[in-house]
């Protein structure tokens, strides 16, 4: 503040130098202040000076600029199409409520397609949209997006246990809304190209294969805090699932892609624990994926005869426990969808 030098002026018995010194000092000081504030205001000051650095979590650490970016939800248009996009997003993130007639478990699309279907390597819907129609070995035919989503309802959402007993029929509004949402997410994406970040990625099977005991140890260490000690997920006060069940009557059925160990390992490696992807080694990812996919879950809806017949027809060559025997127990017989596994009660 200029007050101090001025008071010094009155002390000194009138040297012209002192007076001029003071004026120059004050002028220079104020000029520095002005310059400094200009630099800060224009954002030219380095980050270490103006604020602390931010350390992104592992979920963000991959170089992302080369990946496709879906538009921001704030830019959903305010018209009929935008309304369909909003409805589709609501179905996607809250499937059990907004498509309740066709959901036979406790899951939502967004449990595996993270960040409402936007996150790379968690099967983002912007990448899926530009990859269909395509031929799928699973049903040996050309699949449209509607066919594909019908498959999601049939297997991952266990539609056989839902009030209607099946997926939404072809032409249902649920498909219109979901496809509107996917189409909007893929705004500006090139069609018929495999985009980086699509699917769950691939994690090669480690030399040691996989092991259930090791998998159980990984589960106890890194998964229990959210998915619960018995893998049945956890609910909030009102009984709403916050963390999804990984096996049992309220989880995906034996026909779902996630029931294959290689698929589950890739999802786990690239997305779990949430906000810490990549924490687990490839070995740990395979072990824990095997552990959770060795538990019983709703039966494969394609099963007509025995488990062995279904295994031959639909699971031959897959990395799966379906049709194998673990501890003397045949895996894949399925369990009835029920009001299902209760979340651990607080006591």
């Amino acid at each position: 503040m200029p007050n101090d030098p001025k008071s010094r002026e009155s002390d000194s018995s009138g040297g012209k130098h002192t007076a001029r010194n003071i004026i120059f000092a004050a002028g220079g000081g104020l000029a520095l202040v002005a310059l400094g504030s200009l630099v800060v205001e224009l954002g030219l000051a380095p980050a270490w000076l103006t604020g602390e650095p931010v350390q992104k979590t592992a979920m963000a650490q991959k170089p992302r600029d080369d990946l496709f970016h879906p538009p921001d939800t704030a830019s959903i248009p305010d018209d009929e199409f935008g309304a369909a996009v909003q409805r589709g997003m609501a179905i996607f993130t809250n499937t059990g409520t907004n498509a309740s007639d066709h959901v036979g478990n406790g899951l939502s699309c967004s449990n595996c397609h993270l960040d409402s279907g936007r996150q790379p390597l968690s099967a983002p819907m912007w990448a899926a949209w530009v990859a269909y129609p395509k031929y799928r070995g699973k049903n040996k035919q050309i699949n449209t997006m509607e066919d594909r989503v019908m498959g999601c309802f049939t297997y991952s959402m266990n539609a056989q246990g839902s009030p209607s007993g099946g997926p939404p029929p072809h032409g249902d509004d649920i498909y219109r809304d979901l496809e509107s949402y996917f189409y909007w997410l893929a705004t500006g994406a090139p069609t018929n190209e495999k985009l980086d970040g699509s699917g769950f990625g691939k994690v090669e099977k480690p030399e040691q294969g996989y092991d259930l005991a090791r998998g159980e140890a990984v589960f106890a260490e890194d998964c229990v805090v959210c998915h619960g000690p018995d893998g049945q997920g956890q609910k909030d006060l009102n009984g709403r699932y916050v963390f999804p069940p990984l096996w049992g009557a309220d989880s995906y059925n034996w026909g779902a892609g996630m029931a294959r160990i290689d698929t589950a390992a890739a999802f786990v490696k690239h997305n779990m624990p949430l906000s810490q992807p990549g924490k687990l080694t490839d070995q740990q990812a395979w072990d824990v994926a095997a552990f959770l996919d060795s538990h019983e879950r709703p039966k494969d809806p394609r099963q007509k005869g025995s488990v062995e017949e279904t295994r031959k027809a639909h699971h031959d060559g897959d990395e799966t426990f379906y049709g194998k025997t673990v501890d003397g127990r045949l895996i894949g017989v399925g369990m009835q969808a029920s009001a299902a596994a209760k979340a651990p009660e607080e006591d």
Partner: protein
Amino acid sequence: MFGRKSKSDHPRPDENFEPYEEFSGIPMPVYWIAIALAAWGAFMLYDTGKDVTLAQDERVEERAVQISADQGEGGNLFVANCSTCHQPDGEGLRGAVPPLAGSEVLAAGPEIVARILLRGIDGPIRVGGDDFDGHMPSFASALNDDEISRIASYVTLTFGETDAKLDPKRVADLRHEVGDAGSFAGGAELATIVTSMPPQPPHPAPTAADAMTATVQDLVFAGRDDVWACASCHGDLGQGGENTPRLAGQPAKYLTKQLNDFRDGTRDNESMQIVAAGLSDAETAALGAYFATLRATSNASPNLSADLARGERLALQGDWSLGVPACFTCHGSSGFGVAPDFPALAAQHAPYTASQLAAWAGGGRQNSPLGLMSQISQALSSQDRRAVADYLASLPPVPAGRTASAQEGTSNAE
């Protein structure tokens, strides 16, 4: 220029030199920097002081303007405050949240809706033939009379097909009348004033009395040696304030773990470490169980003058470009918490939340499972941390508040 010249003059005094006049040994740029620093410091002091004193008033004004500008319609208020649970179409959540559409309660008109908004519901309720474990927050602290009247009118018109309008003045009367009645004890109590409701499931006896043993009562209200009475800082109902956290309604095991962590040094806090050192395992467990049963209305407010919209986005959607998932992905869809490891965030005091996020980020607090909170906090800037703390403080507490003290809290159960 002048500075250099005087320096070169230095060895040879000029003609007017007087013995009492000292040479300036300090170069002019040093004066410049000193004065610049002084001016900057004074400005910062002024600026911070102004922030502290004016922030609260400004916030209240801004909120009022914002509400009248873009949230004035009941529909927008409904979406902002109700739709996370009851869903935008009022259909509720299967097995968790009762539907509004077709609900027997709405047939009774908007005044009942306003009463429910003011008090909240804490107990089982049967709607449309289905039973729900009802835990609805009280919005008395989060919404003003005008907002409540608009929501109540909107809800009854949209989902109950009754076009009666509710006057804000009537809401003010209701607010006065409801006073500290606490939340409705489930559908059973609600049915006593809503005749259109079907028979309701019985309301279980409150557990506060069970948890309130003589030991707990002593510890909470009287203290013992170095164990200061909990209530002396955290309030009679565990409602906390500013940097002292709200404990009411937190998961019992979470609270017990924090006390044990203070005791063994895993969590750092000078006061709490002294307190916890004097507690046995049985006592930390009993205190956790006790505070989990408490019901207190919100006394938190967004007082950090941060960006509420940014905070809302972080809480509901996260910022995945920073690698930060939504708070509510783990802490529950309305910040209710998920027992035993994820504490409730709704109605927590903003200064406390912000200080804990800063502590996670800086390494001062390290007791979260898998180090989840350390990584997430480090990814947030200090503005983001304050923004999310402010947003969470603006939410209604769950379970719904009960302002009567815990010992006599059973009086309003029918």
